[in-house]
């Protein structure tokens, strides 16, 4: 049991850190206990998890052919770099 209950606002503020396992033990437990009795914040948690996954996909297919060609040439010339 933690010393105090936390509000939905406070729980939601810590959800991403909770998912990242970056909270101190007492704060982690407070969020866990809040989630155990708050269906709405459980929904927020699931959504935060999905949103985090969406962020991870943001790099896909970002190297255009012309840029790739120029940078490949630059890498080839690195043996002339001082």
């Amino acid at each position, binding site marked *: 049991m933690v010393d105090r209950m936390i509000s939905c*606002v406070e729980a*939601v*503020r810590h959800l*991403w*850190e909770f998912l*990242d396992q*970056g909270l101190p033990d007492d704060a982690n437990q407070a969020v866990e206990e809040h989630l155990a009795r708050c269906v709405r914040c459980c*929904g*927020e948690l*699931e*959504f*935060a998890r*999905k*949103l*985090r996954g*969406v*962020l*991870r*996909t*943001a*790099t*896909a*297919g*970002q*190297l255009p052919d012309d*840029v*790739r060609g*120029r*940078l*490949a040439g*630059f*890498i*080839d010339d*690195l*043996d002339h*770099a001082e």
Partner: protein
Amino acid sequence: MLTASDTAALQQLARDELPGLYGLARHLAGPNEAEDLVQEALLRACESFGSLREHRAGARWLRVILTNVWRDRVRKETRTAREVPVDDVEAFSLYRVLVDEDPYPYSDTLHLDFLGAFTDGDVDTVLLRLPPRYRAPLVLRYVEGFATRQIAQLLELPLGTVLSQLHRGRKLFERAMWDYADECGFVARRDAARSV
């Protein structure tokens, strides 16, 4: 001065990591400066390749160098540029806005439908709209997988500042997702639906 074999090893590493390096550069500096940032990072990598003990760690090492180059550039710029004000986003919750606005009234999977409307390119566009000081920690944490303490070291910021920027960055990202969806017509707003 690198030996011929070190140069060849660095070149191979750079070729292997090019898409990821460019992706990180693009997210940190934006599309206009990304190519130049990669070039400068590779030149700096040439100077310090001897410090790379474990070649298996090369991918992460290159990303650290690139982030350092970007950080140094931003510092120079912010000496003269004014801070971009960011209005308060503390209370914004995309989850709750979706519940309140109910843009897909016949859906049982409202939140998933909303996220499903975004292509990878859309998410990328949204990310690039965020101010760099909030975008950088977000990209380093969630796209590149650096731990929060490592980000603080990389950006030479106190841990508390990084945590605060991450929190605000996440909120800004949520709001930017909503604004983008609204602009692109991914969502039908209630007020618009009522006026039809």
